[in-house]
């Protein structure tokens, strides 16, 4: 009898370790795990866990630390049935016991020495399906690893890294496919979004984010400029299973700061795109910044919410864009519903009825430089926002900052930077500030601000107990009251100024999960991942 029971338990746990498409669809029903980059397909980075509360959060204490070889850690770990899987810079993977932090295995990838990773040798995480983990690499491969051993199941080239292609974002597991974006907007790549068969690594579809002649939108590119048009897809998108739509953000057109040779709107750069998950066919798009010359990527995580809009239920997308405006889009059609600045913006006076920016004069980069709010790192950037159904608020980390944009001549050479200018990220005379910010997603109104001196480079997690967790460039990890923004707990994890490009040591977004029956919270800073638990269970 006992043997039978044991066998049953073993079988159950084996079956359990399979991350099936059905489990991913119902990720909310297993709050003890963290199954996708943003926690679930809606990308709320919200956890239904409520054991850590506003009342007891002050008891949080260190449980374990996982050290890595290099900064800058931008990964969001996955947690599946007691095992944590995470990427380590540049392209290593580790499997740990989520309760103790002890390592089961490590995969170390050997990378070429001539990588083109303009902006840091970083990786933001994994996708999982069945017993397999998936990672995109800096040399633009997609690698499948056996989650039990770290052995390579397959390894396919997505694009030629010598031409400036790289993968830094976490893939998304949808049905039996692995969807991956691509980076390289500073190298004049031609951007795309790809889907691969999870079993075999065979490519199922590719959607080019820059259309070729004969395809819709090619006439928004001057001459042959589409061939080097950029529009990368380097941050993980979202999935709506009912509409069977993948919603994803695209980055800047190339070259970044000189648009003279790419006259036109430059579709589908700086856009939200919605693709049929089975075919990769474009269903709709919304371009935040037509003909961008400031590097204001739309590489934010699309937050999918079903809510009332003007008295009627509607499928929505919430989006706080790098250029400083917050948008609400209709998820079925891509129709612009609403938009308003969420930070100081001097480049546009507002949005027109179609959601297009009403540009102010004199904002294009010049040789001498043009100073604008926001600066090139944006009013926000790739790090995750969070939506809490408990408070009904949309949380993000914001930069109030001014930067200088310079224009330069440019010439395309495959594999070389293709920028068309230069930037000054922070102006000493006007240092600006950072904030963890709560918006009313229906109106874009700021509900509260938790001000920081330094600019955050990390995202936000919210939980069912109305807590918000966020990191700061200053090296603090905070728990805030999701309703008021009041600080409830903080710990100094140190290490500011360790990052590349003046970036932050704390450059990821927190997660929470269950291990050993307890709610844990993990956040990376510097070279390490720190995990916290309540002192009193």
């Amino acid at each position, binding site marked *: 009898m006992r043997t039978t029971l044991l066998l049953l338990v073993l079988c159950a746990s084996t079956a359990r370790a399979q991350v099936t498409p059905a489990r991913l669809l119902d990720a909310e029903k297993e709050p003890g795990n963290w199954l996708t980059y943003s926690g679930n397909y809606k990308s709320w980075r919200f956890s239904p866990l409520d054991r850590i509360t506003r009342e007891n959060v002050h008891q949080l204490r260190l449980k374990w630390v996982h050290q890595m070889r290099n900064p800058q850690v931008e990964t969001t770990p996955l947690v599946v049935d007691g095992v944590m899987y995470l990427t380590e810079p540049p392209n290593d993977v580790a499997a740990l016991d989520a309760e103790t932090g002890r390592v089961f295995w490590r995969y170390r990838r050997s990378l070429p020495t001539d990588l083109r990773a303009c902006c840091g040798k970083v990786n933001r995480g994994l996708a999982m399906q069945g017993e397999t983990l998936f990672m995109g690499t800096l040399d633009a491969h997609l690698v499948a690893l056996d989650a039990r051993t770290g052995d390579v199941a397959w390894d396919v080239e997505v694009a030629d890294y010598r031409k400036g292609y790289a993968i830094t974002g976490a893939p998304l597991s949808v049905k039996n496919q692995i969807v991956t974006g691509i980076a390289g907007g500073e190298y004049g790549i031609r951007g795309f979004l790809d889907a691969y068969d999870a079993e075999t690594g065979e490519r199922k579809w590719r959607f080019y984010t820059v259309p070729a002649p004969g395809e819709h939108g090619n006439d928004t590119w001057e001459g042959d400029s589409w061939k080097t048009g950029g529009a990368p897809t380097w941050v993980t998108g979202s999935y709506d299973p009912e509409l069977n739509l993948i919603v994803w953000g695209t980055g800047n057109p190339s070259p970044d700061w000189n648009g003279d040779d790419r006259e036109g709107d430059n579709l589908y750069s700086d856009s939200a795109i919605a693709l049929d998950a089975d075919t990769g066919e474009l269903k709709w798009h919304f371009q935040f910044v037509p003909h961008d010359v400031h590097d204001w990527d739309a590489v934010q995580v699309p937050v999918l919410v079903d809510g009332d809009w003007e008295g009627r239920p509607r499928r929505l997308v919430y989006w706080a864009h790098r250029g400083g405006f917050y948008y609400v889009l209709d998820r079925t059609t891509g129709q612009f519903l609403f938009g308003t600045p969420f930070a100081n913006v001097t480049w546009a006076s507002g949005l027109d009825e179609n959601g297009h920016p009403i540009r102010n004069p004199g904002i294009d980069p010049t040789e001498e430089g043009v100073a604008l709010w926001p600066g090139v790192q944006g009013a926000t950037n790739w790090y995750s926002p969070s939506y809490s159904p408990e408070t009904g608020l949309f949380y993000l980390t914001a930069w109030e900052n001014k930067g200088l944009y*310079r224009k330069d*001549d440019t*010439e395309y050479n495959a594999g070389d930077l293709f920028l068309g*200018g230069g930037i000054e990220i922070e102006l000493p005379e006007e240092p600006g500030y950072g904030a963890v910010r709560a918006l009313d997603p229906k109106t874009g109104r700021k509900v509260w601000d938790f001000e*920081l*001196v330094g600019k955050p480079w990390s995202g936000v997690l919210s939980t069912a107990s109305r807590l918000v967790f966020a990191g700061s460039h*200053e090296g603090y990890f905070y728990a805030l009251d999701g309703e008021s923004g009041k600080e409830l707990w903080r710990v100094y994890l140190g290490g500011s100024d360790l990052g590349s490009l003046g970036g932050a040591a704390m450059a990821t977004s927190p997660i929470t999960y269950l291990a050993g029956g307890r709610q844990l919270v993990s956040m990376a800073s510097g070279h390490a991942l720190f995990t916290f638990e309540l002192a009193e269970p």
Partner: protein
Amino acid sequence: MLILLFLSLQTNPHTSADDVEAGKRVYRVHCASCHGADGRGGRGPDLASGELYHGATDADLYRNIEDGIPGTEMPASWLVPKRLWQVVAFVRSLSGTEAPSSIRGDVSRGQDLFRGKGGCLQCHRVGREGGFAGPDLSTVGSRRSPEHLKASIVTPEEEISLDYRIATVSLSNGGVATTGYVRNEDRHYLLLLDLEGKLRTFEKSGLQKVEKDRRSMMQSYEGVFDDADLEDLVAYLASLRKTRTH
């Protein structure tokens, strides 16, 4: 290693007149704000003097422009190899074009003014002598143009180095206000080097007031020094140069 060797042996493959002209355009956008439109320096060193303190080979210049120079204000750039070489070619073309020196003063008299009437060592260091309340001037002649040096004496508030931003804090429980140079600041703490040379940490929650102002702790010496004095002082400061490191 092979690449390093290759680079160190490599000479500039882009040296035509067109390359120099292209390099000048890149220079205007990326370099002129510190090194001056004509390359004769400003906030950054003179590139036309022929003295390049961080290596004078083409490969040194290339590396310094590409990666920046650690420990200095020279940042890395995002230029592609061809453009880097073109800037190197332009910088080379400046060498030897230096206009007759604008320094006419007497170095020795300038040194006397610096140590005597000016009392500059109270705040500034030169070599092993001097105070800590202002920037170390031991090698300032390598970093700043004569015009910039003069402006720093006459209108010191025009450009305040990030390390010399001032804050004055008053504690909630009274006591004497403390003024110092901001060494670090976050949401919770302000770290100062106070004017007595102590490193101090203030918890912001215990402060009644934090005043940050953009003034310089250095007074203007306009009127203290006449034009001849200023020329001598600038001549002395310009003579404070470092020897080449490599």
